[in-house]
Structure formats: C-alpha cells, structure tokens
C-alpha cells in the first residue's frame, strides 16, 4: 500500500470507527488496537527512500518520503500509541465519550504519521493540524478544568503553528519551493543571514510550542494534568515528540552548522542554535524546579516533560555527532518512560479516583505490577543504568563536556539529579509507605491494562542492555543529515558505545549488576531468615497497632503515619517566591481582557442614545469617505 493511500484511508477509517464505537466501544477499541498492530508491521516493511504523492495544492505537489528519521519517529510514536490503544480497551469504561476517543485517537495517529512522512513543509503543516486538532478534541473529555486546558493547548499550539506557516511561506517566497531538502540546498547558498535566521526560528517555533520549550511551555502542565488519564500518556509520550521532530527538521535537516557557519557563537555552535540551547536549558531548570514541588502527580510528570524536552533540544542543538544521537535517542527513552508513567498513574486514578500524591500511599501492597512498571520507568527517566534512559543522557553529557559548555552541562546535571528528586516523590507518596484506610479494598488493574506497561518497560530494558537496533536508524539519520559521517559511535561487534572521552559497554555493565545482585542474594540467604512484619496489620485486624518504630507509642491509624505532603519541604522553602512565567502570561491576558472591556464599554453602551450616536457617526463617516 502506498503511503498516501494509507494516510487517507486511516483518516477515513477513523470516521467509520466513530460509528462502530457508537454501537460498541469495546469492538472499536479492539479494532483500533489491531489497526495499530498493522501499522507497526507496515512501518517495519517500508524501505527508506520510498516516495509517494498526495495530490497538489496551489500548484504545489504534496509529497511524502520515507527516511530513517520517519522510520525512527513513527516507530516510537506507534509503540506509544499502540500500547495506549491496548490500555484503553479496559480503561475506556471509566470514560464518558469512548466513541469519540477512539475516533480522534486514530485520526491523531494518521496525522502524526503524516508529519513524519512529509517531504515538504506544507504537507507537514496539514498533517500537523490534523494531529493537533484531533488531540485537542480529546483533551476536554477529562475533568471539569480540562475545557480550559483544551483552550490553552489550542492557543499555544496555534501560536507556534502560525509562526511555522509564516516561516514556510517566507521560504517559499524566497526560494520558490516547499520541499525540505531543496530549501536546505537553497539556504546553504543564500548570503542573507537575517532572512535565514528568521526562517529558521519561525520554523523552529512550532517545535518549541509543541515540545514545551521555555516561553511556550505553560500548556503542558494544564493539558497533561487535565487530559483523560490514558491520553496524557499519548500527549507526553508521542505528541510532544512531534515538536522534537520539527525541531530536528529545522536544526538538522536544514543543516544549521553549514547555513549559519558565518555566525559562530561558542565552540563552533552558531548563535541560532545556541539560542535554542539556551531555551532548552531554561526549560530544564523550570521543569525540574516546578516538578519537584508538585503535589498533583500528573502535573509533576508534565513538568518533567518540559525538562526532558529541554534535554532533547540541547542534544540536537549542539549538532555534535554524539550529542545529536543522544538527543534523538532521548526522544525514544522519554517517550517510553513517560508513556509508562502516565499509564501507571491512569491505573492508579482508575482505582482510587484521585491524582493528589498527598491523598495516596502504600499502593504497592495492592498494585504490585503497576508499581514495578512505574519503578523501571522512573529508573529510565532518571537516567540510571541499566535502563535505556542512561544511554541518551550519557551521550548528551559527552557532547556538552567535549564542547566545553560548562554552564549548559551544569544545567543538564542539575536536571538529571533533580529528576531523582521528582520521580521519587510519587514513588514514595503513592506506592510506598502506609496504605490509607479508605483504599483498603483497592485491587490491581486487569492484565489488559498492565500488559502494555510491562511490554514498554521490557523494551526499554532490552534497549538499555543492547541499544544497537535503535542506534542503527539514528546513525543512519545522522549520515543522512551529514553530521560527521565518518564517525561511528555504536560498535555492535565489540558491544561498545564510543564517546569522545572513553567508551562503555552496556552488556558488561548489566552483567556486572546481575553478578552484584546475585552475590547480594547469596549473602542475603546465608544469614537468618527474617520475621515478617505486616504493614497491613491495622487493615486486617481491628485494633492491631502499627508494628514499626513509633518512638514507643502505639498508633493504630496508618493514615497518620504516611509522609507524603511537602516531601521536599526543606528544598521547596528555598524557592517559594519564585517568578512565574505563567503568572506573567495571566497578567497579560488580564490586561487584554480589560482593554476589551473598555472598548466594549465604549461601543456597547446600554442606553439607546449612545447607539444612535455611534450609528449616526458611522453613517456620517461612511458618507464622508464616499464623497
């Protein structure tokens, strides 16, 4: 099947899906999942270089092309989407509009696949809008506040997209083509730096808005926090990656190193790229600091998405071979980790109906599989071996240290260690500790819901030990964009990943960890067996005290003994009075609202005489202009 046929039929199918789901949402969800499986097999079968044509618009051919980048990004997206589709088969019964959810999810899939396949800027824009609009219509299906969330999402997204569209038309006006590779050729030979930089930044701004980079990051918190729980996984795991894709297109596909070689800023990085890196670094700081103090677990991970978007941008922005690969690999790692985390949270909310960390606790006794999935996902998100998250962070650090960018490196380290803090907060507050009495009867979610999480976590673990299958398309991508084509980073025959400063062998490190674990286990079994202290005793037997250290007092109520409010109080106190970009935007909005009120007050006076006055004045002016 040609790519164009696939995309068009996918969009059509999504409408059909609505009616099928209207009859039975369960069948719709299962069909959705089967379509997703088919799409994955389709993606695997396509060979690079395949082109296809969608039609013509205003004399411009809408072209599709299958490259290494399309393969990689489609694969990541489909992994996330298909697991959410599987997850939704059971989860949808807690939702009000399952039919619309199925339809828009499929339509969004089509849109994002189209974005990755697009060969020219206008096709990219069309599919971009399909993806954004359909996802925007899913967001308000959540709680009460999610209407506002959808509006904020749409506005932020639109501000990015329109700048992108303006940039695309600017490029068309100057170079007479919309095809990305041809624009790249033209731009390299274009002498005017100002126009090039304008086009570059305008194109990148769509990516900035979508992946939640600093000035346009505020929608992430609201939209991720209030979207339907499982859809947050798609939002953070997949839709945000559309932004990373556009950033990659504007930074790497239009070879910024060559285009802006006349304005080097620091260590061979052009000023434009450095600007993006600075934005990324700001996002890391904001995302990390804000995530640490969140009590709402979904908003916490939403802010972590801001920070991780910053990592991706920094990695890609350096245009260093290792940094680029690290940034692109981070897309994969963050997609999987964030999807699993949001699905785990969706499972928790599905059972307990709250997303406040301070109201939860001790769910490990009731939902152990969800806990394990979350645990491995945060290990990946915090960048700890042997999960795959470490590889990308390691690559990004290598690039930063190699370029001597110490301040950016400092911010990256800060984000990395800060991520230990914020991922641990839900772990301790939601899953560990004491189980509050009201969640006595909570059960583990059904296998349909935990299976996708387990699969994604397993993939992440396998890639962490044997990263070469995923590094191969990334290296292909790097060759396509011509970033140091002679350098080889992944050396699968020696099991090595080569950095500029030393190598490492993921298989060996994993084996060492296993050996360490086995020795620890042997030591553990050698010595006297423990007596089990049941943390759930107060739940099981009325009047049984908590059998842990209580300073000699007997406490019967586990709710009193759960520490999860203001987990990092000592640290949070240090930046209580921080300046807030969101508040600034709100002030701006208030100002415009007041301006509107003022104008409104002038023109819409409640008295008829004022109306008569204005009408007369208008007529007079019209006549005066006429004659």
């Amino acid at each position, binding site marked *: 099947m040609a790519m164009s046929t696939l995309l068009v039929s996918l969009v059509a199918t999504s409408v059909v899906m609505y009616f099928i789901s209207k009859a039975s949402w369960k069948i719709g969800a299962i069909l959705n999942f089967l379509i997703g499986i088919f799409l994955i097999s389709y993606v695997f079968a396509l060979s690079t270089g395949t082109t296809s044509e969608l039609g013509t618009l205003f004399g411009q051919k809408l072209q599709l092309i299958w490259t290494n980048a399309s393969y990689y990004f489609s694969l990541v997206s489909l992994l996330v989407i298909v697991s959410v589709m599987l997850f939704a088969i059971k989860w949808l019964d807690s939702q009000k509009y399952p039919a619309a959810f199925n339809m828009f999810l499929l339509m969004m899939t089509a849109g994002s696949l189209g974005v990755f396949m697009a060969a020219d800027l206008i096709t990219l824009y069309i599919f971009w809008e399909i993806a954004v609009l359909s996802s925007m219509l899913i967001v308000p299906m959540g709680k009460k506040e999610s209407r506002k969330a959808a509006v904020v999402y749409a506005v932020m997204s639109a501000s990015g997209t329109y700048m992108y569209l303006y940039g695309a038309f600017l490029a068309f006006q100057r170079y007479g083509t919309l095809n990305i590779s041809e624009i790249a050729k033209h731009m390299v030979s274009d002498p005017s730096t100002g126009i090039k930089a304008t086009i570059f930044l305008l194109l990148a701004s769509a990516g900035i808005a979508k992946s939640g980079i600093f000035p346009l990051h505020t929608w992430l918190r609201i939209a991720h926090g209030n979207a339907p729980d499982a859809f947050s996984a798609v939002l953070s795991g997949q839709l945000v990656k559309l932004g990373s894709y556009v950033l990659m297109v504007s930074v790497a596909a239009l070879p910024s190193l060559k285009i802006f070689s006349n304005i080097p800023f620091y260590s061979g990085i052009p000023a434009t790229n450095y600007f993006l890196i600075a934005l990324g670094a700001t996002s890391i700081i904001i995302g990390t600091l804000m995530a640490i103090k969140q009590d709402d677990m979904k908003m916490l991970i939403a802010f972590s998405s801001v920070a991780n978007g910053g990592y991706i941008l920094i990695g890609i922005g350096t245009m260093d071979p290792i940094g680029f690969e690290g940034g692109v690999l981070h897309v994969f790692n963050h997609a999987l980790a964030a999807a699993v985390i949001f699905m785990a949270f969706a499972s928790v909310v599905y059972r307990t109906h709250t997303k406040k960390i301070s109201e939860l606790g001790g769910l490990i006794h009731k939902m152990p599989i969800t806990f394990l999935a979350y645990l491995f996902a945060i290990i990946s998100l915090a960048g700890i071996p042997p999960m795959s998250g470490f590889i990308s962070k390691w690559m990004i650090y290598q690039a930063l240290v190699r370029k001597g960018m110490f301040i950016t490196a400092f911010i990256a380290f800060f984000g990395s260690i800060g991520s230990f803090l914020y991922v641990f907060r839900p772990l301790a507050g939601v899953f560990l500790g004491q189980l509050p009495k009201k969640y006595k009867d909570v059960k583990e979610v059904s296998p349909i819901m935990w299976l996708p999480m387990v699969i994604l976590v397993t993939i992440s673990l396998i890639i962490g030990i044997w990263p070469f299958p995923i590094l191969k398309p990334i290296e292909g991508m790097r060759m396509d964009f011509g970033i140091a084509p002679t350098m080889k980073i992944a050396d699968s025959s020696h099991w090595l990943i080569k950095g500029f400063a030393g190598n490492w062998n993921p298989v060996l490190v994993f084996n060492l960890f296993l050996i360490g674990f*086995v020795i620890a286990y042997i030591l553990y079994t050698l010595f*006297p067996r423990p007596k089990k202290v049941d943390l759930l005793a107060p739940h099981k037997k009325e009047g049984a005290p908590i059998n842990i250290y209580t300073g000699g007092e007997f406490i019967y109520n586990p709710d009193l003994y759960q*520490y999860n409010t203001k987990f990092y109080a000592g*640290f949070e106190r240090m930046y209580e009075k921080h300046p807030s970009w969101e508040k600034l935007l709100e002030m701006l909005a208030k100002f415009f609202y007041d301006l509107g009120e003022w104008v409104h007050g002038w023109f819409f006076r409640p008295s008829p005489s004022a109306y008569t006055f204005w009408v007369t004045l208008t007529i007079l002016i019209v006549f005066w202009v006429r004659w």
Partner: protein
Amino acid sequence: MVAAYKALFNLVLGFFLVLSLEGVGRKITARVQRRIGPPWYQNFIDVFKALSKHPFSNGWVFDFGVLMALGGAMATAMIVPMGSTTWTPFPNSDNFFVIMYLFAVGALGMAMGMVGSGNPWASIGVSRALTQMLGYELPYLIVISSTIFYYKTASIHKLVELQKNGWNLLVMPLGGIIAFISLMGMLGKKPFDISTAPAEIASGPMTELSGKYLGLLHIMHVFAMFVEVSLFVDVFLGGGNLGWYLVKFIVVWVLAVLISSVLPRFRIEQMLKFYWGVPLGLAFLNALFVLLGWTL
C-alpha cells in the same frame, strides 16, 4: 577471565580496606575527643554481629531494595580502577559518568527499600538525602567536567596515566579542594550527615533496619565509600601503583575523618546554600580557568 579476578579483588580489598579504615576513623575521632576508642577491627565485629541477628522484614520491596542497593554498589565497586591500568578490571567501561550513574542504582535501591518500610522517619531521611545529593553533586560534576575537558578523556585509567607528570590536584588546585568538599558530603561525614541524623530523625533511612538488613546496608555503604574515595584518588591524586594508591586512600580518609570529628551538623537548607554558594562559584571559576588554559 583476568578481568573477573581483578573485579573480585576489588570487592575483597574494598571490603577489608574501608571497614578497617572505618574502625581507624572511630579510633581517631575518639582520640580527638580524648577517649580511648574502640579497636580498629570494631566495625568487622559490628557487621558480622548484625548479620548474625534474627531480623524483621517489612515486605518484599524492603528486601528487594536492600538487594538492589548492595548489588548496585558491588557492580560499581567492581568497575572502579584502583590507581593504575594494571588494577583496572574493565578498561573499556571505566567511564566516569557510567560509574557515577551506576552508583545511583544503589542509592535508588536503598531509598526505595527504606521508604518501603512504611516509616515516616525513613521518608524524611530519604528526602533529605536526595536534597543533599542535589547539593554536593553539582560542584563535583562541574569540576570533573572541567577535568575531562582538560585531559580529553573520561576514562578513569587514562586520566590516571595522563597524570604521570603531575597530579591533577596540582594542575587545578581549586578543583581539587572543591571535589574534596563534595567528597565529604558524599561520604556523609559530620557537617553533612543530615540524612542519618540519629538524634533528630532516628537515624533516618535506617530506622527500620534490623539484623542482616543493617549489615548488608553497612556493606553497601562500605563499597560506596570505597568508590567515592577511589574516584578522588584516581582523578585528583594520580593513582599510582597499588601501594601508593593505598597510601593516598588512607591519607584522604584520615583527612576527612579529622575534619568531620570537630564539626557539628548543618541544617538541610544551610547545607544547600553552602554548596551552591562558594564551592559552586569556585567550581565555575575553575572551569573558566581550564577553558582559558590558566592551569598550573
């Protein structure tokens, strides 16, 4: 196969070296306070006694956390080079960032297991420990980054080789001092033992540990300290053959113990403000010197 023996040797040496040095440290502190103090082998007795007791377990995540902590610390201790290429078990994987992050596996395992015990003191201790990590790691990583930038390698045994003509401490003295201050925080020595403050939060993360759990975590702590001091010796004091390496190790250890034995404890935000004040600024200054080539 040789690599495996070397790794095993790392573990054995690390265990005996640090455990006896801990006893020596207790003796030194006692002498500073004009006491006699326990014998140098006291900590061996403590560990084996703890292992011989009949413990309590707070559920599977508690056991799993302890195993993960010990396993992670052992894996790290197996990778760490001991002063020279001869005593480097895995020359291809002794990258600094790998060691630093592998180390975090142990820390995460410990944090998870301890919070899994359901005790709020443990949670508070872990919250403090993580905040403290944010404090001391940042200056340390900046100094290490400038070192890597200067020597153009992150591989520890190569760093050691490149210091043949002069220790890194003498090349960037500022960096060495800051790394030592961070090392004090990493070791959890006196002004920075906020996370385990026994008088405030009932020894923090360790509140619920009994018997062999306490013993295993003590062993994990031993390996952690072995890795931390080894890294400092390798990166700043130029390693050397096994004998010199041991001498340097002991000197660094004794210095840290002496400083810690006369200091009281910081509060958590005081600690953060301390680390993010002068040491972080000096670390950036050091990085600037390295960038400009103003090294000794």
